[in-house]
């Protein structure tokens, strides 16, 4: 019963977040420069045509009904049309660019999680020894070094000095696609990997300190089983929460990476949208990314009390 209540509360909060994010993107659209009807109509459109377009877009309505219309369209996957070029539907732009961003972020997340959990646990087991201290130092560097500083360094070493990896995306792929993902994913995952390492280490040290571990040691549980089955499974729970929040940073972090490696992802589309003052693309990009972020955190929030009965007890 408690579990159901906790999940319902999370769903409610998720719904509220969605409302908030849609409202903010709507307001941003209202404040955006330029009148959509004039831009879509083109330079040669007559006043009558512009008025017709305005009516068709619902722009002559008061704002609450425009907001309802905006949400209604967004829910049905209609984000309007791009202001430039052939007035391509924004839905198609998103569909074309989103997979690359999601792929980048997912690969980076997988890399960061496996890397972070492994080295974090390792550091905790060898606490205060040389290995632990080196892992801590490297992860501190990883947390403080921004993507676009790490990027040039790695590109310089692997593309220019060693000449082993491509330094940007190209439409005519000469190598398997994954090769073009190696550097971007590595750079993107550096920060979350460092964060997860530190968190796993702290959480693992806490867990190893607890009484049930001492009992297990006294019982003679083999070391490997002790660390993986008893300690890590308990220590990993706060890490799962971080994976949820990190994913949001990965999605936005991939904006920088895509730009850097000239990859045609959602980030590139949104930045281009800002530079061209093409608000529908920006709105839709932010809305879709934000919704994914909310959804992912919702999944993590619901998953946690299912995985860990202790959290179920402590909540409400």
């Amino acid at each position, binding site marked *: 019963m408690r579990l159901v209540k906790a999940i319902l509360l999370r769903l409610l*909060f998720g719904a*509220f*977040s*969605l409302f*908030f*994010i849609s409202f*903010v*993107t709507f307001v*941003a659209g209202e*404040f*955006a*420069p330029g009148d959509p009807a004039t831009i879509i109509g083109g330079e040669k459109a007559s006043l009558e045509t512009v008025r017709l377009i305005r009516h068709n877009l619902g722009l002559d309505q008061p704002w609450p009904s425009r907001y309802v219309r905006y949400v209604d369209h967004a829910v049905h996957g209609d984000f309007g049309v791009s202001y430039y070029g052939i007035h391509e539907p924004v839905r198609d732009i998103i569909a074309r660019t989103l997979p690359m961003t999601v792929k980048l972020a997912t690969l980076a997340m997988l890399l960061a999680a496996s890397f972070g959990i492994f080295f974090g646990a390792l550091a905790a087991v060898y606490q205060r020894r040389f290995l632990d201290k080196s892992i801590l130092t490297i992860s501190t560097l990883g947390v*403080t*070094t*921004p*993507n*676009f*500083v790490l*990027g*040039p*360094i790695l*590109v*310089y070493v692997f593309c*220019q000095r060693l000449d082993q990896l491509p330094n940007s995306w190209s439409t005519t792929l000469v190598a398997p696609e994954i090769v073009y993902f190696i550097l971007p994913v590595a750079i993107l995952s550096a920060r979350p990997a460092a964060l997860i390492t530190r968190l796993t280490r702290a959480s693992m040290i806490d867990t190893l300190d607890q009484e049930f571990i001492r009992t297990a040691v006294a019982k003679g549980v083999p070391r490997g089983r002790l660390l993986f089955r008893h300690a890590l499974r308990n220590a990993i729970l706060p890490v799962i929460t971080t994976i949820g929040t990190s994913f*949001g*940073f990965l*999605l*936005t972090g991939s*904006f*920088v990476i895509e*730009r*850097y490696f000239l990859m045609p992802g959602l980030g590139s589309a*949104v*930045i281009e*949208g*800002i*530079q061209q*003052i093409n*608000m529908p693309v*920006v*709105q839709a990009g*932010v809305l879709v*990314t*934000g919704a994914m*972020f*909310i959804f992912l955190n919702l999944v993590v929030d619901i998953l946690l009390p299912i995985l860990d009965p202790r959290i179920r007890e402590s909540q409400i």
Partner: protein
Amino acid sequence: MRRRLAFTLRGKDPLYAFGVAFLTLLLVFATFGPIIRNAMVRPAKEANFYSVYDPVSRPHEAVGGKYVLGTDEQGRDVVSRLAAGARISLTVGFLVEVIALTVGVTVGVLGVFAPRWLSMILMRFTDGMFAFPDILLAVLIIGTMPPGKLDRFPLGKLLPVIIALSITSWPSIARLVKGQVATLKDREFVVGAKASGASTFYLVTRHILPQLTGILLAVSMIDIAGTILAESTLSFLGIGVQAPEPSWGSMINSAREGMGSYPEALIWPCLILSLTVIALNFVGDGLRAAFDPKSK
């Protein structure tokens, strides 16, 4: 508390000492660097010359020559541009933090003391802000302010970035302040003051907020580091501080474009940005340790 801080300042914490020393130097460099440097490299004849924007020599002069760190792809003096970039980063960082602290503390205090309907609205609004990844919201806000629109205001070229980053950085402060105020409110010295007839305003300004100065100062340092990083990210993406203003982020971006032939141009802006961020984090951690002996 004051004694403890002085104790730390005397060099018991080398990282804190390094951070303070570096930031002091950076502040001096940002304040006087552009002027002094301009006087040093200006050709004698030209009166309206400003070395931050005008080329002093051929592009890509080598490091260690006449211009110390050489010249960039347009032949502009790298030292001048780094100093002007420091000005931009520190100005943006400082102003954003002042705004974020003002709004964050007000909302946090109101979240505890305001009538229930108002605190509900404020805190739900704060929670909603957390649903946005920071850069995403900043990108959206900047999208509503095209370059050139705000140029007639003071700091015009920096204004879109300052507005966007101020809006994204107050919620975390509001949440922190609310939590702290909610616990302080029930402590004996506050309850005692209330019993002797102090007004809520007096309680907050004289008893509660002074308790928070330490932690807020520490958090501010780390937040400023985040803001400087965010400003550089936006400028790197080409939607932050616009050319010809020399933000470190846009310097990194233009150095990246010429990386094939002049990789060394990347070193200086990357180095100064990383050191600034790290120094601010060291100072923040040092302050936190000094003000809150229980923290690790």
